[in-house]
């Protein structure tokens, strides 16, 4: 499928999903069904998707206080002399936020895994996303791998010297010392990244870089896929309406 079509569907999906009110369980099930269908159509491994979607976990936990600060009705929990208010509505809201976050991340992961990065950045440009933003994302993506390679080489060199003495069980250094070494590595990596970026920028300038990355060729969206756009968006909107009517 054309990257622009996928991107439009993903954006509309995210807007509809996140505007759906809390406790709209039927709508969440329908959204989940759509996500599963997309993953199946893209032949992506469920294990990989679940693993990558774990990135949503810290954000989900940020919503946990809602359980204890939500409105009435509340259940009073006795913890020794302390009392804790447990809100049913708060719990519903927390679960709704967690589901929406997880589905959002899962959708982004599917889009990323099923689309080449260059196609995605071109699609963003053609859909009139700010050029500077797309350039920053593209360069960040490209040099993320360069930095990962640098980190791998440094870790390899460090582990090559992480030695021990035969028969001596103690070793490995204190936690404080290891933290200092890791800090030193991070600092060294920062300096190297800075130097590297200077070299890369000089080489970009010498090849005529003027602030814009060259855009790829623009191919028209195939007619069969164009025809899918409107019904697809309508389906998403319909699920949103179902959610609006059934939610709390």
């Amino acid at each position, binding site marked *: 499928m054309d990257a622009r079509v996928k991107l439009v569907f993903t954006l509309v999906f995210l807007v509809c999903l996140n505007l759906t009110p809390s406790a709209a369980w039927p709508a969440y099930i329908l959204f989940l069904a759509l996500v599963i269908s997309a993953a199946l159509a893209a032949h992506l491994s469920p294990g990989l998707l679940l693993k990558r979607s774990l990135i949503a976990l810290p954000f989900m936990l940020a919503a946990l206080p809602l359980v204890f600060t939500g409105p009435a009705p509340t259940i009073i929990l006795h913890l020794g002399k302390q009392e804790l208010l447990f809100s049913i509505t708060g719990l519903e809201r927390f679960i709704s936020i967690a589901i929406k976050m997880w589905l959002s991340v899962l959708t982004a992961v599917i889009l990323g895994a099923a689309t080449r990065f260059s196609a995605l950045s071109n699609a963003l440009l053609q859909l009139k996303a700010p050029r500077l933003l797309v350039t920053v994302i593209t360069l960040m993506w490209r040099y993320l791998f360069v930095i990962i390679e640098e980190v791998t080489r440094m870790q390899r*060199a460090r582990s090559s*010297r992480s*030695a*021990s*003495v035969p028969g001596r069980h*103690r070793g490995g*250094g204190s936690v404080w010392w290891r933290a200092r070494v890791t800090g030193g590595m991070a600092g060294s990596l920062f300096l190297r990244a800075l130097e590297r970026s200077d070299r890369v920028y000089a080489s970009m300038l010498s090849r005529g870089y003027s602030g814009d990355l060259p855009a790829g060729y623009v191919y028209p969206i195939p007619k069969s896929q164009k025809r899918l756009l409107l019904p697809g968006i309508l389906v998403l909107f319909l699920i949103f309406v179902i959610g609006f009517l059934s939610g709390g």
Partner: protein
Amino acid sequence: MEAIAEIKDLSYTYPDGTRAISDIHFRVMPGEKLAVVGANGAGKSTLLLHLNGVLDGKGSIFINGMELAKKNLGVVRAFVGMVFQNPDDQLFSPTVFEDIAYGPIHQGFSRETVRERVEEALCAVHMNGFAARNPYHLSGGEKKRIAIATVLSMRPGLLVLDEPSAGLDPRARRELIELLQELPQAMLIASHDLDLVRRLASRTLLMNAGRIVHDDVTASVLGDEKLLFENGMA
């Protein structure tokens, strides 16, 4: 005399399916300086990374009489001093002292022993007085010497050097060769620099497409123009 390193039927395939080295077999004797030459992609660096267990291929590796295994990695890494091509990968501390002290501290030595080891290593690479310097601000040749000192502080029996003369100016290169000639440890040196190999190594392994295609005294390998040409070295 017993070999200090013995590699038997070693093969390694990268996770993406690329066969990097196949059926590697050789021994390094104490004090021997052995060179590994070959074109880019011949598998030299991949081979070196097996010597201290950074990569784990099929086959067996014996270091100082021990078979290399997960349980003795720490001891093997003290015995096999790995000097990487880019010294910046190896030098990550704010001072030269801390970089050289990394190995001995990790080994659990006392503060006094660590200081002695650092002084000994700095002396061995003729860099006394550099302990308080920031490695980041040293020249290429100085960084290389300090990178060697970072492994000498663990008192290794075998030095493994990946392209030691890469990126050095003629003087730094000459001084490095003289330093490596002085050091008493056995060495395994991967290099494209045939002059360095001629001056340092008594024996040379010629690699091509992940295999050792020739193993002989250095003069014989480097004197055979046809052999070198066929294997991308001339």
